[in-house]
């Protein structure tokens, strides 16, 4: 798939979301989990009070981003992988400046609460969407009453 212009920008940002700070964790059963969020060790950024422990450099991946793997997980075909590696690293480093902030006096928070006034919840009252036909019409491949999709056996393929 050619990556040009707008498409280039979009796929680049997708790659970024997928690559920003992979931290491999090891837990008792030998399984690995990955956090894609700027944060060190086993706690996400918001829980750390002492950012002083981590310098921007220390948190940044020692190895260059594995662009091939990132593209695979994001399901993006790239014709030229080399150019993306350094660009992704640049953006990570740029965000890495946040590690220099002293959070000792700051209360951990999760989501920007000022934007919401209270929690946004919905009552459990059914409402049928009136234009389901329009949705069905918009499907690329419909085999009434099912959506037809290519055969994919395993979730990790």
């Amino acid at each position, binding site marked *: 798939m050619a990556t040009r212009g707008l498409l280039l920008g979009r796929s680049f940002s997708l790659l970024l*979301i*997928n690559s920003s700070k*992979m931290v491999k964790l*090891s*837990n*008792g*059963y*030998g*399984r*690995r*989990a*990955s*956090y*894609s*969020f700027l944060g060190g060790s086993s706690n*996400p950024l918001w829980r750390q009070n002492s950012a002083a422990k981590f310098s921007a450099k220390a948190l940044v991946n020692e190895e260059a981003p594995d662009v091939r793997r990132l593209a695979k*997980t994001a*399901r993006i075909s790239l014709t030229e992988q080399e150019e993306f590696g350094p660009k992704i690293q640049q953006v990570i480093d740029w965000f890495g400046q946040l590690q220099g902030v002293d959070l000792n006096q700051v209360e951990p928070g*999760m*989501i920007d*609460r000022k934007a*919401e006034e209270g*929690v*946004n*919840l*919905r*009552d*459990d*009252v*059914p*409402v*049928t*969407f009136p234009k*389901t036909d329009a*949705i*069905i019409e918009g499907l690329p*491949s419909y*085999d009434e*009453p*099912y*959506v*037809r*999709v*290519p*055969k*994919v*056996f*395993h*979730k*990790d393929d």
Partner: protein
Amino acid sequence: MAFTLFRNVIQAQPLFLHSSALLRRKNGVLYCTMKSTSQSQTQTATEEKQQQKSPQKVKVSPQKQMKEVSKIAADYEAVIGIETHVQLSTLTKAFCSCPYSYGAQPNTCICPVCMGLPGALPVLNSRVIECAVKLALALNCKLSFSSKFDRKQYFYPDLPKGYQISQFDIPIATGGSIDLDLPLEFGGGHRRFGITRIHMEEDAGKLMHSGNGSYSLVDLNRAGVPLLEIVSEPDMRTGIEASEYAAELQRVVRYLGVGNGNMQEGSLRCDVNVSVRPIGQAEFGTKVEIKNLNSFSSINRAIDFEISRQVNLHNQGQQDSIVQETRLWEEGAQKTVTMRKKEGLADYRYFPEPDLPEVVLTKDYVDSVGKSLPELPEAKRRRYEEMGLSMQDVLFLANDITVADFFDATIQKGADVKLAANWIMGDIAAYMKNEKLSIIDIKLVPHELAELIASIKSGTISGKIGKEILFELLAKGGTVKGLIEEKDLVQITDLGDIEKMVDKVIAENPKQLEQYRSGKTKLQGYFAGQVMKASKGKANPGVLNKVLVEKLNAKV
């Protein structure tokens, strides 16, 4: 693939688990005495092979299962953890107002939100939080008063958005436990298993693979339906403990009314993780995940099979061939098979869901939900035990909340506890099974059952008549008093009345009287039958027989 949090900490096994393991071995020896009392502790490969044959039978007797379990328990310890997904029975989906009903026409309960169309935004259903808090309180969990949603990203045709909204590092509840009683046929005993966490998430659609074609079919009705994922601590040690854990979860879910917990329908799904380690070893062995378990008995049999398989490999020195993988349980062949050996693990690229605010709970809210909880199965079982009921009765009555409520209502009207239990477990249960009705559908109501029991106890009607009335009450309803009057069923206990009837019957049956006198004392039953017939079943059997014996033996 579900993310499992199994701690790296060397778990100090609680003492009771040790003693229960001993108990099992003791029981095992009890059952084994049929074979030979001196059983060698070490297992040979041939012994293991024989063991492996039996799990392939569909019905393994409990005794045999326990024998095998205890044989394995001698050298190895199995460590089992379960991840359960409970589909909530809310009226609408988790993040949109689409109504969901199982079995609806495919792709009709859809909208832009659950279809993942551009621009659509999720809004959380308040009832999902309520269900999560209810379940968390019922499982003695610690609630997170502030939790968040995360995106679990992967590509699959049944996942419209390309990510599942779930909770990753800050689930709504952590650190709980569940209490259960093992069924008597498996040795009984009380168990407590830990719950690591409970979190909210959404379900994916249903994917159907076509036979030979290069395509698959998707029904997205189920996409967006709310789920609660419950991850257990790896506390279970045998297949029966695991299946009872699942059964108790189903019981709790149904008691709370948060879901119908039906494995066959897919509203309760279990994935099991099994590993074995030599007894005394601190590190866990390599764990294997088992999927495609559709019933509690499959959970039981699949785990026992997998334990045998792994122990067998250990015994043959091939423990390294046990790899971390996902295996499928094949119900027909009664064995687990490799789904596919994975290279590396799934990378879900979790990050906080930016379209949803934090989930905030207040103490008042949690307290009000707590107050609305019904009496839970564990509490009910302990209360019934204290009332003097046998464990068998307790397990039956507390299994279904509607049956327990019926029982409670009956004894509240003053009925005798044991008699009420007997009626419910006996004739009433049989009727329900025959007519395929639940206890709410039958026409009999608790206070009439209490009335029936009281009437028999007071001697107003005989036990036999009571059974007849019961059938009528079950099928058509009505009142005990009404039926007694209508059909004139009051028991005849008056000595004089009975004597008159006995005299009449004796006079009408001289031949039988002769036979009785000459030695055929069994004919007393014949006379009793005749009197019963004459009295339309109303004669009090006790008084009747007393009078018969007198009169039959008296006259010369």
